[in-house]
């Protein structure tokens, strides 16, 4: 079964390896260049300025400009779910080969579990590794870096998102029984769930703190770059009337400002919570997949 799984998925393994190496390599390379340059990097200046102007530094500049890793780490889990997860069972059913596979000497349960383990574990590990390099890369930028902007690209969430996308893909493939519709459904569902969690759920994992201050400049990322500032600042006049989200000559005399936020030291707790949510969803979906393939699929 191990050889069979390898034989069936070796091309996908190659693709995954190439993309992970490309992504991991680019993040690692920029991190390395920054660490070389770190001696002359004042903490107040953007790290891009610290890179040396030799060709090596320019390559690092170019990689930074394209933001390859940051887009890749968001998009690739979805693609893994669509291109590797969805056809895992669907392609067998499309070609009728499930009737061949399920009438050999191994049960469907074993067939499925070995396939899932051998395809999922390396991909999740690769995602975790590249996500970890992204963490290293951010750490090099000093304590003032805002991690919340790149919440989806760091190690635990990247790995959990990959797990979730793959599970989603396998489930759609098993139920829809055709690869291409299953791929489309996987991409759509993945985007809906991830965007839904990011926009509607994430900021509520722990009740946000509220900052109220008479120093009108003491909110937002300029005041604390490591925090996740939620929504817009609300300005009030001295009588407590809300003036709005902007201040200017036309809106009266603001006296104090209120804005809620998640402080920077909660970042890893949030990463852990979101990863746990995605892993739980993935496990539930896999439970359904095992039930469906062993009991219902034909």
């Amino acid at each position, binding site marked *: *079964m191990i050889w069979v799984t390898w*034989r069936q998925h070796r091309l996908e393994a190659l693709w995954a390896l190439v993309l992970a190496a490309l992504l991991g390599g680019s993040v690692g390379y920029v991190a390395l260049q920054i660490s070389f340059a770190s001696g002359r990097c004042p903490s107040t200046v953007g790290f891009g300025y610290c890179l040396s102007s030799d060709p090596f530094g320019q390559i690092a500049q170019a990689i930074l400009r394209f933001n390859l890793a940051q887009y890749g780490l968001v998009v690739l889990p979805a693609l893994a779910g669509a291109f590797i997860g969805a056809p895992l069972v669907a392609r067998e059913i499309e*070609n009728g080969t499930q*009737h*061949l596979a399920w009438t050999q000497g191994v049960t469907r349960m074993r067939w499925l579990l070995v396939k899932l383990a051998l395809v999922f574990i390396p991909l999740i590990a690769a995602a975790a590794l590249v996500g970890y390099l992204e963490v290293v890369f951010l750490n090099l930028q000093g304590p003032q870096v805002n991690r919340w902007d790149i919440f989806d690209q760091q190690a635990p969430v990247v790995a959990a998102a990959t797990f979730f996308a793959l599970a989603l893909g396998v489930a759609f493939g098993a139920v829809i029984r055709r690869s291409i519709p299953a791929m489309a459904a996987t991409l759509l569902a993945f985007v809906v769930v991830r965007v839904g969690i990011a926009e509607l759920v994430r900021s509520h994992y722990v009740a946000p703190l509220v900052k109220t201050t008479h120093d009108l400049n003491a909110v937002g990322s300029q005041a604390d770059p490591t925090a996740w500032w939620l929504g817009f600042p609300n300005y009030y006049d001295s009588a407590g009337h809300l003036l709005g989200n902007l201040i200017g000559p036309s809106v009266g005399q603001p006296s104090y400002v209120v804005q809620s936020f998640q402080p920077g030291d909660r970042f890893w707790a949030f990463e852990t919570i979101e990863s746990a949510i995605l892993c739980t969803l993935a496990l539930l979906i896999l439970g359904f997949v095992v039930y469906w393939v062993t009991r219902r699929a*034909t």
Partner: protein
Amino acid sequence: MIAPIEATGLGKRFGRTWALDDCSIRVPAGKIAGLVGPNGAGKTTFLHLAAGLLRPTAGEITVFGRSPHGQLLLLLDRVGFVAQDTPLYSGFSVGDMLRFGRELNRRWDQADVEERLRSLDIPFDKRVGQLSGGQRSQVALTLALGKHPELLLLDEPVARLDPLARREFMRRLTEAVAEEGITVLLSSHVMADLERVCDYLIIIAAGRVQVAGEIEALLASHHLIVGPRLNANARLSGAELVKAQHTERQSSLWIRGSVPELGAGWREEPLPLEELVITYLSAPRAVTLPRPQLEEAAS
């Protein structure tokens, strides 16, 4: 003796339609049994139930006395299955397909499998997708024989082959059966495929079994008699009427049982197997035979 396949009141429903309804079939050991019926008669459903790919909705089926859905692991080593259109992994080479069989079966005779393929002149490094239809079917059959199954289930294995490849496939199959004493259940909608190789016949139409029996016994017990036009109320004594067909001047009667005393002008005409099968298939509701073979088996 435990029958290779025994089904009692077996039914399978997909949505609202019963693909198979109240089927009782007993496939005798050591025979090549043919499962004939028009497309959509329930042949594939029956084979899938026997192979453990489907669960019955009603009734029960046992293979070597065990349930193919509940105790599948105990049967997988003993039952070979070649699905419709002989699915194989088209990206695999023939050698890869053999390794697939070796990796996934505890019981596997590599030397025997290699020998069979060599005698067919199928190169091991050729991709399955590049094989001809005949070669592809042969690889699928070889793969199913690799575990030395005691029961071999074949779903329309020759449906897409040209006559020469059909004959070659059937020849290989009968050779293997003769060597190893396997029980085979083979489905087809083309009677000519089965006539040469089968000793037992199951006719199935619209999800129900119409006839089951040894081909020789079926031929011996069915007769076609032709004579002058009968009036509609004529009664037949001593035989069971399967089908009657009347033209202006003559009547043709397909009967089951012994030929009655024939009056003047009546003669018996030859009734070949294919004709017999078509007779049953063209009258699916008119006659559903009792199951003499099953009664024998039960006693």
